[in-house]
């Protein structure tokens, strides 16, 4: 697992698109970590002139309630990355558990898990997300994370299930059985390590979706408006008619960041695709 993971990273680095994506991602991570250092002000300080246009002291201007927009943008990276990677991880774990088990075991469990997966696939994600977010009691980042994970695992589960079924019919699995390996050992040590690139792909796909979903939920006001994130920035900008006051930067900057982060993740995924798809890989 560790070895294939390392190989994966090596191959990814050789791919131009993936390298570009990874570099952008790394930059975002750096910004998120160093946000307190990089930000000129506290993102929550409301001590500035309201709705001020861009200036040397406030490169992106200030918000309707007098906060520095650049500082908000920098700190907002944290929430987007947290929700993106967190929900990506959660959704992929769920997808792996359901998909691999459904793909390997036979009998009622397989049927139940398959039904569950299909159910979540046919329920339209965005309305479900809105309903969940609207009815859940708390509205913090954690809620958004849960909502996005719950709605985002099914696709990955289906892909992983199909892959598990193919791998399970390979001779090395039969050989492992004959070598006396138990079911769990076969699943975790024989099958799953052969799906590293697929797992990575579902992780990045789920993360991309999560970043977008988080922004959408916040923008619709379904998150906690007090959180500092790109989504809430959009929400407040919209609320204070930023476009009418000529403060387009308040909408464009977070929008661009969301698009850039999502694209970076997709770029990395292109590279992973190329690894998983032998047609693209040569021989």
């Amino acid at each position, binding site marked *: 697992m560790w070895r*294939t993971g390392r190989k994966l990273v090596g191959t990814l680095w050789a791919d131009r698109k993936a390298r570009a994506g990874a570099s952008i991602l790394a930059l975002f991570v750096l910004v998120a970590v160093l946000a307190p250092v990089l930000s000129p002000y506290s993102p929550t300080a409301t001590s500035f002139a309201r709705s001020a246009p861009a200036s040397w002291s406030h490169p992106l201007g200030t918000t309707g309630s007098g906060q520095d927009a650049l500082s908000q943008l920098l700190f907002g990276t944290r929430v987007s990355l947290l929700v993106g990677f967190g929900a990506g991880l959660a959704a992929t774990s769920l997808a792996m558990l359901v998909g691999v088990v459904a793909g390997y075991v036979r009998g009622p469990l397989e049927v139940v898990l398959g039904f569950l997966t299909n159910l979540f696939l046919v329920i339209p994600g965005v309305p479900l997300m809105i309903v969940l977010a609207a009815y859940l009691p708390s509205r913090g980042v954690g809620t958004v994370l849960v909502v996005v994970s719950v709605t985002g695992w099914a696709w990955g589960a289906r892909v992983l299930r199909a892959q598990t079924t193919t791998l399970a019919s390979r001779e090395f699995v039969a050989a492992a*059985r004959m070598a*006396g390996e138990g079911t769990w050992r076969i699943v975790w040590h024989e099958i799953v390590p052969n799906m590293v690139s697929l797992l990575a792909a579902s992780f990045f796909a789920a993360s991309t979706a999560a970043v977008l979903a988080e922004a959408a939920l916040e923008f619709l006001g379904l998150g906690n408006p007090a959180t500092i994130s790109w989504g809430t920035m959009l929400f407040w900008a919209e609320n204070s008619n930023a476009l009418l006051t000529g403060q387009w930067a308040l909408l464009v900057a977070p929008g661009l960041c969301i698009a850039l982060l999502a694209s970076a993740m997709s770029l990395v995924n292109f590279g992973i695709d190329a690894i998983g798809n032998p047609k693209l890989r040569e021989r």
Partner: protein
Amino acid sequence: MAGTPGELGAAGGRRGDGVGGSAPGGSGAPGVGAPGTDGTSSGSGGRDGAVADPQPAAPVVEGEPGGHPQRTQQPLLFASGLDVVYEPAGAPVVHAVRGVDLSIDPGEMVGLVGESGCGKSTLGYALTRLLRPPARITAGRVVFDGRDVTALDQGRLRTMRHRGFAVVLQSGMNALNPVRTIDGHFADVLRTHRRVRGAAARQVAEELLGHVELAPTVLDRFPHELSGGMRQRVVIALALALQPKLVVFDEPTTALDVLVQRAVMDTIARLQAEVGFSALVISHDLGLVLGTADRAWVMYAGRIVERRESAALAGAPLHPYSAALLACHGDPTADNVQLGGIPGSPPDLSVPPQGCSFAPRCWMKEPVCRNDPPERVIGTGTVACHLAPRKLVVPRALEATVLASTAGGMGVGQNSTDGTATYDGRAALSAGPGPGASDGPALSPGAAAAPDGAAWAVRRRRSLERVEPEALVLQDVVKQFRTARRTGGRAGGRADGAWPGVGRARSSTVRAVDGVSLSLEPGHAVGLVGASGSGKTTLGRMMAGMDRPSSGTIRLGGLRVETMRSRDLPRYWQRVQMVFQDPYAGLNPVHTVGYAIGRALRNHQRLRDDRLRSELHRLLEVVGLTPSGQFSAKLPHQLSGGQRQRVVIARALAAKPQVLVADEPVSMLDVSLRAGILRLLDELRRDTGVSLLYITHDLLSARLVTDHLLVLQKGRVVESGPTASVLRSPSHSYTKQLIEAIPVVA
């Protein structure tokens, strides 16, 4: 038009002089460009362009001795000084084809042979401009029908596809679009390349299918409804739809079983003669090529090391490599059967060769071989060996004779008369140290090193004391599969997906195994032969406890497969193990050799730590993977096919089984590697007393490693008896067919 000094033309004479008529297959006979005729009838058959084009009038052959004997006839295709490299990103450059000169005449059939990785496919693709990056032609040129193809752009190249060259790939039969009918495939090709549509296209398609001996009804089928042989015929017919002048067949029958293979090759030969196209048949099977082609080229490490008339090559090969390849074939019905193998593997083509590239594997090498051998003209052919034309005697790796007394442990016993495989013609059960196993690590670390093979024998005996060896007894075993879909689903290593009845009876049940009884006595080797779809694998899987019989009993002592619960299976697997067919699918790509074998040792023998490690190393040495320390850390992709199969065998041995079920263990390997694996299985049986069920469609290997043979047809045993006598005097017509399908070499 001789581009080479006259002496070559003179020395070489006209190829085909006096030989053409006797060439096996006789495919060149009628009509177009008969290769057997004297070359003076230039462009016989009136092929346009061949004579008219002034540009490449003289086939320039670079580096003089590297040339081939000149012919006066204008070749359909010729190449000179062809160099092809692979330039993969982040990996060393592979020089897959070096300085190859060749020519193919109109209407002739040339075979290209060599082990995998010698550059055959690369050369075939280069000739037809099918190379894709990272491959690139770096030098030389290819002239087809008067035009320099190396310089053509893609647009012009596409027009060459019609009435130019066509390629039939081994994977072609799997590349048919699963959701389109065969009719659809033909419609596409005919529309784009010949502008024929509708009813006319259908008619042409039916005609083409007729050529490859398929009924018109095939047009309405989907690819998965056809057997492998039928699919391959469809692919050939599709290639012919382009009305090509040259067809390159890359391993056209490798994935098919013997009977189908023979039939497809016959079709190709007949078509080639009737339709009159030229053909280049690429194969790793020398026997197949010699049986059909007029001329044969032997390729090694990117060069053509020998090119001769097929008959001449079969009779007296001049290059050690050709001789060694030839020695990998034999007649299983002979009194004395010997099998050669070529130790080692083809060189890494990313490393520039130092002198003769065959030298590391050559048993004849001399100091002069440190220099690159030039291609020398001998008779009507060429050879790239310093010592040619010296007489060659190939060392043999494995042999079987009819006389039991002289054949060591592999003799054929006499006392088997009933339908079950019982007989005793074997040497002592626990022989001493095997030849391959010596001075390994001792039983426990720190103890004085004991001769390892002896330790194995001792422990073997101890384990035999623990569990008294018992026969594996099958009685009236039947296996039914409900629908065609289900049987096709777990095709495993099934090359030919064809099951008896599939396609005909869609809903009813299929009896893959139909009432088989046999008894595999301790220490004996029973062969199970039959075409694909005859139920061999299904029977083997049941005997290995991977499947349950629908009815009948399979017993090993007190263990009964038919009623066993899955939690008891590991106990069965401690005594019965399986060697899988596909060495590439049998090992998990993410685990090291040490892990794969180590896990089996842990589970079955409950070994840990140092004991486990020393046993692991011992096993690796038993299967000939030395130095064992190095091999245990390797990942499967770092091993060759033969080495992988040794790992698979070592893993099976880790359970110290009494019975090994080997399902076509060598069919995916190059012929050169087969002898090694077969000898290993044979030695194991003699040294450790394990009994062997050897499943194969290759009668030669069955003759070499088994003493009793069962012939399976449609799930039933149609013939059984001592191997040699079944093969030498078959009574059932099906057995006779199998024997006739063997390509005759020499």
